[in-house]
């Protein structure tokens, strides 16, 4: 039975690493991708992030996630071209002028989007939800436990909705007839038993947790929360890339205003800055603990 659960249980050096350096890596890449607009920088980061997901053996899963983003990117291009502001016309189709400015702007935006998705797939595909929970639960115990149970119950609820649909079909409900609206409408009754079942379940789970002593006293932790020196280094270097990137951005590296007429230029200083940033992230590829 297919399980609708995003975490990919693979044995890779990225998977074996503590969750914290990975979270730091994803956060740093994400922050930089929001800040930086230069296509060259974004492209280099994207290639690097793809190398990381390849090392984590989740490239295929990441690409299938990106598949949906392609539509968004296509829309971005179409939108930028139709409402183009630039004056450097590359070619004209009928009355629509395709300008260099709009193409570059759309490219930059799409790369940013791709980068964010790829970075987040490191988080979703390689950080085990239990580990994520443990880190999050430091900020508040009970509420975060709810989150963990939600991930744990997700496959169960998905299976539940499948068997409810079967039960409905066996009582004469046609699911695949008519247009989209008719199909959506006929699915409404499925929600009711699903909701009721889930409510019953959550009561039972709460009861079981209570019976196992949850919330009686301050908990201890089964796992060794100490990071190795190497993991610590990976985490701090990834975090250091943020202030460095911001400083360079203020100095004008990675900051391109394509609508305002910036062109695609790469000078030696850009190459140097990108190289330093990638080097700060690169240790993640070494992985950690055996």
């Amino acid at each position, binding site marked *: 039975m297919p399980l609708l659960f995003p975490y990919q249980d693979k044995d890779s050096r990225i998977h074996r690493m503590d969750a914290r350096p990975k979270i730091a890596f994803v956060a740093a890449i994400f922050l930089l991708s929001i800040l930086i607009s230069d296509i060259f920088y974004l492209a280099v980061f994207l290639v690097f992030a793809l190398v990381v997901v390849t090392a984590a053996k989740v490239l295929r899963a990441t690409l299938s996630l990106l598949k949906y983003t392609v539509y968004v990117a296509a829309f971005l291009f179409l939108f930028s071209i139709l409402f183009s502001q630039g004056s450097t016309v590359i070619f004209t189709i009928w009355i629509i002028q395709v300008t260099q400015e709009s193409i570059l702007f759309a490219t930059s935006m799409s790369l940013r989007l791709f980068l964010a998705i790829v970075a987040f797939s490191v988080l979703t595909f390689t950080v085990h939800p239990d580990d994520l929970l443990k880190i999050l639960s430091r900020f508040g115990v009970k509420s975060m436990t709810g989150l963990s149970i939600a991930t744990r119950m997700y496959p169960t609820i998905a299976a539940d909705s499948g068997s409810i649909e079967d039960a409905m*079909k066996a*009582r004469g409900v046609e699911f695949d007839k008519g247009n989209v609206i008719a199909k959506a409408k006929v699915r409404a009754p499925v929600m009711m038993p699903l909701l009721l079942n889930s409510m019953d379940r959550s009561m039972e*789970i709460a009861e079981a947790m209570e019976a*196992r002593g949850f919330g009686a006293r301050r908990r201890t932790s089964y796992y060794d929360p100490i990071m190795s020196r190497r993991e610590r280094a990976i985490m701090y270097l990834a975090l250091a890339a943020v202030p460095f990137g911001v400083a360079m951005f203020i100095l004008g590296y990675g900051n391109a205003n394509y609508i305002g007429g910036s062109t695609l230029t790469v000078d030696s200083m850009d190459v140097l800055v990108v190289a330093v940033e990638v080097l700060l992230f690169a240790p993640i590829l070494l992985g950690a603990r055996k």
Partner: protein
Amino acid sequence: MIRMDRFTFTYGGAGKPSLRDVSLEINEGEFVILVGPSGCGKSTLCRALNGLIPHFYGGNIEGGVSVDGQETRHTPPAKLAGIIGMVFQDPENQLVMTNVENEMAFGMENLALSREEMHSRVAQLSTYFDLQRFFKRFIPELSGGEKQKVALASVLAMRPKYIVLDEPTSQLDEETAVLFLDFLKRLNREQGIAIVIVEHRLERCLRHAQRIVLMEGGRIILDGKPKELMLALREKGLIADFSRKTVEDGHSSVVLSARSLDFAYGETKILKDLSLDVRSQEIVAIVGANGCGKSTLLKHLNGLLRPKAGKVVLMGQDIEKSTTASLANQIGYLGQNPNNYLFEETLTKELEFTLKNLSIDHREWKERIDWSLKVLDLERYREMFPRDLSCGERERAALASVIVGRPKILVLDEPTRGLDYGNKEKMASILDALREQGMTTVLVTHDYRFVAEHATRVMRLEEGRLTDVPLDSIMSLAKSAICVEA
């Protein structure tokens, strides 16, 4: 020692008490079986032992319960968790974490044990339970039996002196249930942990018990050694002799047939060149190990699943082009969880939902609803919210929502799962009555006794194919399952 002293409990909003004036002592190292018909207060008693009543369930209490001297009234269940552990009925709803190792750690983390201690206990238990193989496995991927074992191991990791189990085997197949019970006995003998277990299939755990407590209407009516109670248990119908009531007919016409079905989930082949002919008014039982594809086969019969090759012929017509919904008035299907069928405000509305979908003429509604409720002995619950019914009644209510469409053929997936003896008998006599009215039934079950007493034909699904099982051999299997030493 757990001591229950003249304990009476009424759930909030309920008219009458679920437990009445119950006094009970459970000593260290005992193995106690708690029996009684559905709704007699067994589950309520279990929850009173570890303080879930009154802390988790609101209600009115009189008398008191103490666990090793601690009054449950003043001690929440979470504080008692280190002394008294609890395993629940549904393995799905008592596991919290996503993998086995973390699950075992969960309770110990709550007890705030040191890391070294937790690791040593996990290592010890996983050897004892033979769990290393799926240490890192994702819990939803485990089978029901494995999950229940993990639930028990996780409770045991907290080293309680008493473990209370509320129908822990009701969701398991016969073989797995027997293994689970043997394991409990071993735990009791080797580690001296007191076991209190609710079990409605008394036959299979009778040989383990030192003591049986029989409940009825919220009271304890008998308490003693198995040998002393044998006669009383027989009288109450809790242990019944085996009797075969159903007779086979001559040869009638084939109403449903499957021809050379092939089916696979991904790479795993489930059905291989499988063929089946079902004749009118038969009760065909399909048995086989967990996960061998019995449910998959049933779903092919009404088009919920479509074969990779082969065809299904219903009343002489290939169903390939028909949707499940369009076949619903010829072939009824009841899946494993009756709750999936129940959501309307009243039972009557629940049946009307089906009639509306099947576009049955309004003038026929009343007659059909009356008939279904009568056959299933649910007439008094017409205006009740069906989900408030007891387990056995919900199973029948779900069946009512199917037969109200008057299908000629019924396909049932484990219709007796989780039912106590009385409810199972009731379900069986309903199927017999429907058969007399012309209904044909195909069902999947793990219950040999039910099969031996009521099926007209038995087939075993193994390695994707069906083979006939002679009724004699099923009967001897059923009898060996009831090995009762008087």
